[in-house]
């Protein structure tokens, strides 16, 4: 099970997919002297058990151009299978169901965070411009499809195939694979844009520390002050960025197999991609919850891009002041149409 340990270690370190370019080292010959003359080749034969103990895989020479064929035996294939069919479904299941239960539980205990009257001044302030919303939704849409098709690799044959039957499931999976491979590119693009545009607003600072100490307002009822993004939002930003980059790196490595690493590297890359993937999905579930059901009015920020000025002053006071300072003519007002809060 050493493969899993490496996978978890890599996760902990948050290091990118460990690109293990294990070049095929020649097998240490039993008795290689300068001149083999006088030796007994029959008795000097290599033995499989001894080689596997020393090198844990058997690399040789073949006369055909496909270098991969020179790998005679790699027992790690069984270990990777043990991880992918044994551990991974559990990790995924616990992470995703766990998060869903947590959100479900939270919803039925704390309920939806309502807008109180003081936060409906009828005046709107621009939270996210069109481009920011576009890049968010580009990434989000792709993420949803990637998540579903990704999970299909793990849970499809366990949950979906019995329902729709192998033929339809195979066709679906084929489409799922294409979708996963090709939508990954817009996802990566969106990820990059989000990183570039929002990174300056997501640098953690003292205000965030205070925000966290107050439990983000969940514990007490006081609203801790926050800039454009409060600590929670900064956390999800960094989860998306780091997780996204890891997923992209391992994804690209898997999309161009053996271009940078050998088969054990590919196994590890897939393991990292899968584990981070399920955790990433879990995290995003929380994000989706809080951005839609969890807090009233939060969706507008990314839906229309405008939020109520009072709501903004309550939740992102320092950000509002910044905005006011920046625009001497007062808050950005778009048309005088008062928009009823949904």
């Amino acid at each position, binding site marked *: 099970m050493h493969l899993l340990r490496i996978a978890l270690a890599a996760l902990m370190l948050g290091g990118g997919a460990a690109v293990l370019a294990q070049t095929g080292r020649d097998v240490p010959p039993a008795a290689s002297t300068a001149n083999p003359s006088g030796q007994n080749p029959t008795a000097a*034969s290599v033995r499989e058990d001894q*080689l596997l103990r020393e090198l844990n895989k058997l690399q040789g020479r073949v006369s055909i151009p*496909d270098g991969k064929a020179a*790998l005679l035996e790699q027992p790690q294939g069984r270990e990777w299978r043990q991880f*992918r069919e044994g551990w991974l479904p559990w990790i995924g299941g616990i992470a995703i169901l766990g998060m869903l239960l947590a959100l479900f539980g939270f919803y039925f205990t704390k309920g939806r965070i309502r807008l109180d009257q003081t936060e409906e001044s009828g005046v709107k302030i621009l939270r996210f411009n069109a481009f920011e919303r576009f890049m968010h939704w580009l990434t989000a849409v792709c993420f949803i499809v990637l998540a579903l098709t990704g999970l299909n690799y793990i849970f499809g044959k366990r949950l979906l195939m019995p329902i729709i039957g192998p033929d339809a499931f*195979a066709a679906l999976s084929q489409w799922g694979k294409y979708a996963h491979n090709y939508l990954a590119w817009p996802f990566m693009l969106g990820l990059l844009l989000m990183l570039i545009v929002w990174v300056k607003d997501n640098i953690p600072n003292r205000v965030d520390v205070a925000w966290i100490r107050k439990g983000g307002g969940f514990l007490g009822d006081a609203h801790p002050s926050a800039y454009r993004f409060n600590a929670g939002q900064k956390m999800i930003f960094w989860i998306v960025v780091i997780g996204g980059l890891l997923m992209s790196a391992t994804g690209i490595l898997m999309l161009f197999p053996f271009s940078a690493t050998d088969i054990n590297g590919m*196994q590890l890359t897939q393991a990292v991609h899968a584990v981070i993937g399920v955790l990433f999905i879990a995290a995003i579930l929380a994000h989706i919850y809080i951005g839609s059901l969890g807090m009233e009015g939060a969706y507008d920020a990314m839906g229309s891009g405008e939020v109520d000025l009072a709501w903004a002053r309550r939740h992102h006071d320092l950000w509002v002041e910044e905005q006011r300072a920046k625009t001497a003519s007062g808050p950005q007002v778009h048309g005088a149409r008062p928009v009823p809060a949904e």
Partner: protein
Amino acid sequence: MARMKFLCDADRCIECNACVTACKNEHEVPWGINRRRVVTLNDGKPSERSISMACMHCTDAPCAAVCPVNCFFTTADAVVLHSKDLCIGCGYCFYACPFGAPQYPRVGNFGSRGKMDKCTYCAGGPEADLTTAEYEKYGSNRLAEGKLPLCAEMCSTKALLAGDGEIIAQIYKERVVKRGYGSGAWGWKTAYRETVAI
């Protein structure tokens, strides 16, 4: 019922590639798809040994387990086959296979590699035995004709043994006892979780 296995006696294999071309001939395997190949360890040194390797039709086959569309099936005589209609060409079976058996018609990226092809132990595929459709997708079906894989039948020094596991293990054991040396049943521990005690 027989439990079909492969055993390559590395102390007889001379890397003459008869197994490779017999497979190419029998199933008209295209260029670039190498169902079987001979790997030489310690090439050029006195301990050099060559081993012919295709698919070992493993017990509890890793490829079958990791396949996201479960397109593998194991026949009653333990030959691991798969359906090219269900296969989506994702390549996971290649990572899982301890012996590098799966081959793909297209190479370059994960995207559209085409359907996986691998050694079928000359037992064809899910199509009806000995039909043209089976031949076009999986090659000929010698087992249905009561024969054994052609690679083993034509091996120049009878190094590659194919057939029921016990029988070929017995043959190999007798050889080792008679000649006094043997470098082991290569791949058996990994493939069948047991090996021939010599």
